[in-house]
């Protein structure tokens, strides 16, 4: 029985001329899982969900959507934390999940050519026997797709040393709104023309549909060892991070957790963290045996000098994995101590950490909601987790207002509203705080260069000036943005 047979939508009839029924999902029950992504507070049922199985089908879909003026929301695995894949009510959700083939592994050049729906971790698994891996490791890497990683310029724990998605992709094949296939970048390290490959990274589905990606693979480091240091003061922990970086060491991973996060995690996975510590640092050093040995000696001294109350070197691989399990389970651990949590994603210059955490703590009192902080300390990417209960009236609204105030503070101290989760629908109003009008107009002009009809993931990532005018009327007092004393970058 066809799942689409009850539909009388003319768009769906047209799509059926280019797609088999098995690629079209149009009934409410089957579409339900697509109504939201990882940010489940924002939901919208789409008009239809499409699951093409070939690039040609993607091209045919795009032509139909352009001709009929239908919005297109591309979707990978739907793990976005900013509502980037939230459907449009008149639009199609274009899932790339079935473009899931690893097309070619080039061991000599250390690259892999994969379709957009291939999962991030799947790439590393496929090349493990060659001693290689794909470096960017967002925490959703078991599920998230490489196409989605391109759209969000995904990061992860190891990006201080090994870079973001933008640093690890050589080429992308993309289908434009007009259905044309265009190849950006190449197997070489640079390509003729403008660097549109870099522009595409983090463009949140507004420029085209990613269908194929050529990724760089790295040799697996021979050795990885992790140090854990405990502090009785957040400021001291922040200074310790600065001193390690200033000494010329680039750790493979460098993470911080505050007391609320440590306690939640210990109750959940027993990672061996000291629950009386105000903050802990995890510092992973990787490379050859010789490099790692030299760096561990150096880092241990710096951590001790910076006032650590306890320093432990994971004695073996099991303990290393246990130390990391705490950090990696920080989000689910929150689910154990709170019915719901709201994860923020600002980045700040590291030296502002003490000031920002103090103010977040004050906001926690003001909004009457608990907060725990995990922090990619090496690159300044802060993830405050706001704990709330969605079943209580107005708690989510308070959580949102709390989160928005944190993001305004991140911008005010010279940072950004999003380090790796994207703007999506969630932070679109905050774009009006971070960027001025001419810059937002320029972003819109870029968008129109690729999407003259405004059909690619509309109403996300880049606000219209009208929207900002409305937002500013509500939030700007006496014509000034929050923290007017601070110069915007």
């Amino acid at each position, binding site marked *: 029985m066809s799942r689409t047979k009850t539909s009388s939508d003319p768009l769906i009839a047209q799509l059926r001329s280019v797609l088999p029924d098995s690629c079209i999902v149009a009934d409410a029950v089957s579409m339900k899982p697509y109504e939201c992504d990882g940010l489940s507070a924002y939901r919208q049922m789409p008009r239809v969900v499409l699951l093409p199985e070939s690039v040609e089908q993607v091209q045919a879909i795009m032509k139909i959507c352009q001709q009929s003026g239908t919005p297109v929301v591309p979707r990978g695995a739907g793990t976005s934390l900013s509502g980037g894949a939230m459907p449009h009510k008149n639009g199609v959700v274009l899932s790339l999940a079935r473009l899931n083939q690893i097309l070619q592994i*080039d061991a000599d*050049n250390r690259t892999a050519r994969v379709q957009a729906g291939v999962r991030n971790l799947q790439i590393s698994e496929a090349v493990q026997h060659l*001693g290689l891996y794909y470096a960017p490791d967002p925490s959703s890497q078991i599920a998230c797709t490489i196409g989605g990683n391109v759209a969000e*310029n995904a990061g992860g724990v190891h990006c*201080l040393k090994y*870079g973001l998605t*933008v*640093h690890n992709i050589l080429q992308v094949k993309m289908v434009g709104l007009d259905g*044309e296939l*265009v190849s*950006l970048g190449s*197997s*070489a*390290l*640079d*390509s*003729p023309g*403008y*660097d*549109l490959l870099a*522009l595409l*990274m983090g*463009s949140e589905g507004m420029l085209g549909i990613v269908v194929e990606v050529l990724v760089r693979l790295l*040799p697996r480091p021979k050795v990885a060892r992790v140090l854990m240091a405990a502090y009785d003061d957040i400021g001291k922990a922040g200074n310790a991070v600065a*001193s390690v*970086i*200033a000494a*010329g060491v680039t750790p493979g991973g460098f993470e911080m957790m505050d007391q609320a996060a440590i306690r939640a995690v210990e109750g959940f996975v027993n990672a061996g963290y000291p629950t009386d510590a105000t903050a802990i640092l995890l510092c992973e050093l990787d490379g*050859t045996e*010789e*490099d790692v*040995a*030299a760096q561990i000696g150096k880092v241990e001294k710096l951590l001790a000098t910076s006032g650590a109350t306890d320093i432990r070197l994971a004695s073996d691989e099991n303990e290393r994995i246990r130390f990391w399990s705490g950090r990696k389970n920080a989000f689910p651990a929150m689910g154990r101590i709170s019915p719901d949590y709201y994860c923020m994603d600002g*980045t700040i*210059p590291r*030296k502002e950490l003490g000031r920002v955490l103090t103010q977040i703590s004050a906001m926690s009192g003001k909004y009457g909601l608990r907060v725990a902080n995990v922090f990619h300390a090496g*690159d*300044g*990417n802060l993830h405050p987790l706001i704990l709330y209960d969605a079943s209580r009236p107005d708690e989510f609204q308070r959580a949102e207002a709390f989160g928005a105030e944190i993001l305004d503070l991140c911008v005010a101290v*010279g*940072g*950004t*509203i999003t*380090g790796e989760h*994207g*703007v999506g629908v969630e*932070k679109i109003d905050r*774009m009006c705080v*971070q*960027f*001025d009008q*001419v*810059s937002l107009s*320029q*972003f819109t002009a*870029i*968008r129109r*260069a*690729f999407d003259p009809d405004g059909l690619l993931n509309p109403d996300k990532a880049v606000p219209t000036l009208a929207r900002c005018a409305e937002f500013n009327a509500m939030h700007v007092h006496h014509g000034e943005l929050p923290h007017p004393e601070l110069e915007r*970058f």
Partner: protein
Amino acid sequence: MTCLANEIAAAVQAAYSTQTPLNILGAGTKSFLGQQDLDGKPLDVTGHNGIIEYDPAELVMVARAGTPLKHIEKALAEHHQMLGYEPPFVDSGATLGGSVAAGLAGPRRAYAGSVRDFILGANFVNGKGETITAGGKVIKNVAGFDLFRPMARSMGTLGVLLKIALRVSPLPEIEKTLLHEEHDERTALKKMNQWVTGTQAISATAWDGEIIRIRLSGSASGVEHARSLIGGEYLTGGDYWHDLNNFKLDFFQQPGRLWRVSVAPMSEPLGENLNQLIDWGGAQRWLISDDPPDEIRSRASQLGGHAECFSKDNEVATFHPLKGSLLAVNQRFKAALDPAGILNPGRLYPERQINGD
């Protein structure tokens, strides 16, 4: 330390309103790159200079586009840091803005990243005279389009850079160069690409037909370990990598057109008995050849790469031509930033090509 941001924006606004082409000038150290038949009104941006912000522990520097790289490298060296993309022409006065616009990176590029990989954000004046902000000054930032990255290699045709935030890199504790004899091209390529699987210390490799030179950077023990893996003697005296990066090696002084061929590192040889110097572990191949330009470009294209002519030659375009749907998106992107086509017209591609006439 002078800020001319308002003056530069006003000059571009005026040029936009009168449709006057502008010829943006830095120190002119890369004037040999790109088409030279420009008759635009000169816009000298070297007066807009100075380091605005530098905190070594943040690994971030913010500086005005006209700042000489010499000043930047000096400030960084005082804190044992450096520019990770190893730009050329520092001694001859190259500016930060020019180094970004031309996008040339040194021998470290294959191991550390390109110019665009180190940019965190920029302020620039678009072709309408508006001052645009993209990115910021933190290492992780996905808000807004990363318009600052395509500024690299744009040859000033997308905007006039005002202020650039860069991620900077620690200086290695020690740096040494190994000499490893090898006469066969395929074997040399294979070796250069295999060694990196055993060490993270390699920061440059080049092959001149007889010898592979390998630069090792890192801790003393890490460098020694790499040497034991690779074998060979240390080079003493001279500054090979500086001379390679600045076109000072004898190789570059020979007669004939100089080509830069960019391909995947393990690509097949470009041909037999070539006069070439292979850099970036095989990904950048310098070729001296008076063969027809179309033949050289087509060989590079066959290998999935492209070829650029680095000799000043009115008969030969510097950059590899674009075609089809790729040309179309380049034209639309350019028009979104510079609708009147007044920024360095023709410097990257002939005007009629990039503006779609």
